[in-house]
């Protein structure tokens, strides 16, 4: 959310700073969700969710295209067993009210779209405008474009105090004090905490965790659309979906939890194993390469996107759970409007809409690749064999506008370590590249946040230390 807002504001002649508590952008809910671009048939008509989802869907495909973010408009199916016709009809009614293209299919018609639906599926709602996008790559690309256009992106800068004096907000962080005329709260799970610092509205947050299985690329040929069960009160249910990067995911669960509890629970995995066969006939849990868990934060039924009534100059986004990813560009557009009511937003003349970007190996023709290798040998060196990532791509990620300084940050940008060996072969080389390029000693290279160093001791050093 913060990346989308920063990117939006970067188009105008205002100075913008993006404060991020984590070690990188996109490390909260954005890092671990389904990556679904929802069509918008599910949202209650008239809500902010419906409004931003539908508008966001229209915006996000273009953004992904512009920024070179992996995305796939593959359509979605809500599949129903016998007796589920009413549920599908209700979704269709909402789709019509929300202005979303959707049609109810018979089992035969649905099988023509997705051949491996479970035997019990009798009908489905097909939404051609749904699809998938890489959520963290989208956020990173937005942050990169913001940074290229002058936004200061400060990571590991949790706001420890926030006050207002003489009409100016002042935020204290471990990275220094920051002053601003307008504050946009995009702190996700911490939204209430930030608001409270200014005496503004707080919300009753509800945290729900969702586990996922990620399957090998080889499974991708078996899944071509996003397959949802009928939604329930707990959410949109456990889906089977391709990812924009060519994997398949099964998940998420939706179980009450506490903030930041991203541990995968065995019972969550068990629930997925039970649920998938109800919609999809060929579960392939043996192709699993990774399990993960994300936490979504809801405050009531709808999104909160509004100026604070208690602290003038504070604009609040909160409870941006599903369909938050899809909605983010549209929410950012609206937030820009709200900021524009408080600051004069004049367009930047030198705004860079499409920043230069390092290509991915798979995008290059043979001629282009060979031309690149002739200039820079690193294009010929595969570091991550599973995802086929070259040294040149990793170096580019390390030096990107919002630089990748950790192994996981590299992974999110170029997928080195994201494949079936999960970094077993390439992590050491990725660490060396970060070390060489940024001048960080190997001992200080981290997996991700906080003290997550990988090389904890040098060989022969342990003898001197009490373990």
């Amino acid at each position, binding site marked *: 959310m913060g990346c989308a807002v920063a990117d939006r504001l970067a188009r105008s002649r205002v100075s913008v700073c993006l404060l991020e508590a984590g070690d990188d952008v996109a490390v909260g809910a954005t890092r671990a969700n389904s990556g679904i671009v929802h069509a918008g048939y599910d949202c209650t008509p008239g809500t902010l969710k419906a409004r931003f989802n539908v508008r966001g869907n229209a915006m996000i495909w273009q953004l992904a295209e512009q920024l070179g973010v992996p995305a796939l408009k593959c359509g979605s199916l809500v599949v129903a067993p016998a007796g589920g016709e009413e549920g599908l009809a209700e979704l269709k009614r909402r789709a019509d009210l929300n202005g979303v293209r959707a049609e109810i299919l018979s089992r035969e018609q649905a099988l023509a779209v997705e051949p491996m639906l479970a035997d019990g599926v009798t009908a489905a709602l097909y939404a051609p405008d749904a699809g998938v996008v890489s959520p963290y790559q989208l956020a990173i690309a937005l942050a990169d474009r913001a940074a290229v256009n002058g936004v200061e992106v400060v990571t590991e800068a949790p706001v420890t105090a926030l006050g207002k004096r003489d009409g100016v907000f002042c935020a204290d962080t471990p990275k220094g004090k920051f002053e601003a005329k307008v504050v946009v709260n995009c702190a996700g799970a911490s939204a209430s905490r930030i608001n409270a610092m200014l005496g503004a509205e707080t919300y009753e947050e509800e945290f729900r965790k969702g586990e996922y*299985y*990620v399957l090998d690329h*080889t499974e991708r040929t078996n899944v071509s659309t996003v397959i949802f069960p009928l939604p329930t009160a707990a959410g949109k249910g456990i889906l089977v979906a391709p990812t924009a990067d060519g994997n398949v995911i099964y998940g998420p669960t939706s179980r009450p939890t506490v903030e930041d509890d*991203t*541990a*995968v*629970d*065995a019972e969550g*995995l068990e629930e997925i194993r039970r649920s998938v066969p109800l919609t999809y006939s060929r579960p392939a*849990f043996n192709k*699993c*390469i*990774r*399990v*993960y868990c994300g936490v979504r934060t809801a405050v009531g039924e709808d999104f909160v996107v509004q100026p604070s009534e208690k602290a003038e100059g504070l604009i609040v986004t909160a409870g941006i759970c599903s369909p938050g990813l899809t909605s983010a560009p549209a929410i950012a557009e609206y937030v820009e409007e709200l900021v524009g009511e408080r600051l004069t937003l004049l367009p930047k003349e030198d705004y860079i809409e499409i920043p230069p970007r390092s290509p991915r190996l798979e995008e290059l023709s*043979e001629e282009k*690749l*060979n031309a690149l*290798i*002739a200039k820079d*040998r*690193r*294009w*010929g*060196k*595969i570091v991550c*064999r*599973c995802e*086929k990532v070259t040294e040149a791509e990793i170096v580019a990620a390390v030096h990107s506008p919002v630089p990748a300084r950790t192994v996981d940050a590299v992974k999110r940008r170029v997928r080195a370590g994201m494949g*079936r*060996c*999960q*970094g*077993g*072969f390439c*992590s*050491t080389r990725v660490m*060396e590249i970060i070390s060489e390029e940024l001048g960080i000693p*190997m*001992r200080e290279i*981290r*997996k*991700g*946040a*906080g*003290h*997550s*160093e*990988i*090389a*904890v*001791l*040098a*060989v*022969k*050093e*342990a*003898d001197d*230390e009490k*373990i």
Partner: protein
Amino acid sequence: MKRFDVLVIGGGPAGMAAAIAASDRGASVLLVERDVRLGGILNQCIHAGFGLHYFGEELTGPEYADRFEKKLAEKNVTVMLGAMALSVGEDGETVVLSPDEGLVHLKAGAVVLAMGCRERTAGAIALAGTRPAGIYTAGMAQKMCNIEGYLVGRRIVILGSGDIGLIMARRMTLEGAHVERVIELMPYSGGLKRNIVQCLDDFGIPINYSHTVTRVVGKPRMAGLYYAPVDENRKPVLSEEKFVECDCLLLSVGLIPENDILTGSGVKLDRVTSGALVDENRMTTVPGVFSCGNVLHVHDLVDNVSHESEIAGAAAADYALGRMSGTEGKICSVGVGRGVRYALPQRVHGGEGSVEIFFRTDNVYKNCKVVAECGGRVLWSKKRMIVAPGEMEKITLDKKDIDGDVTVRLEI
């Protein structure tokens, strides 16, 4: 680019032995290796125990590799380093990316697949809990320690008792880390008996059989893990869960032949080994494409890899040079019966000479009998005091006896 008789993909022990054997049969050979040096995983295996069978002496991994590398240098073999094979096509055309040559399409008279294997990961076993720094495969920890010079943890638990895990238990201990325990899902070890003795028993490291890790806790750094015994269905008994404080979990939970570049090649894979289906020459279902070493099936001893790869390399040379022999006889399948998980090669030709069949059992069996039979006739049988999945077994059959499908099984 020059055309070669034989293209070998991979410069570890399998690729080097295959290239030498192919060259000895008069073939011109190109060997492509993705690393900047030859030797493969042997380079990080600095412990001794290699070469007892092949050289009759005990060598370290790098020493074993060095012997083959020196021999290779004397042969008609062109080596491309830093070169990664991206795909093998239906006609054996191989696409290779290298910083020196760029993206090239290579065609050779025969191709030998020798890409080795990879380790199963925490993701592959759907390990529950947090995902902090501190969870690595044993092989990655070995590379960090022996090549890069760093330890990845101070207090370590090892899940799985595969050979690399056992070797790393000893290695980390020698480097001053504390190995708390080894936890093994099965009631027996997946590694060699000698490694249990030399790497665990000699250092007083406990091993819990029929146990598993139930979840990992801590973030961003690992703070510990819970483990529990498993029931007969290998499900953890959570009421008996115990906690152990540690900052590192190493995984030694299996190796998988790395055949991913074969999608689109038409090479058929065996569902049990995850390697190619081959005949006694180690030729796959695609004529002219051969496979050997850990990419074919996971071995316990590098000595066996070298022997197997020599068979594949020599046959690849013969194929490329148009003088393949011994394949005129009837082709028969080699299947498995009770107690045997897989046998390899999966197909053999009848005819002259003998053929070695390698197999692994599916459990530990004491006082059993290994039987190979063909059409109801027993071709070979022998009593064994003990057989275990972690130790590859071998039998030798006379090819002239083989006139139908062969079955290898145990009498228990």
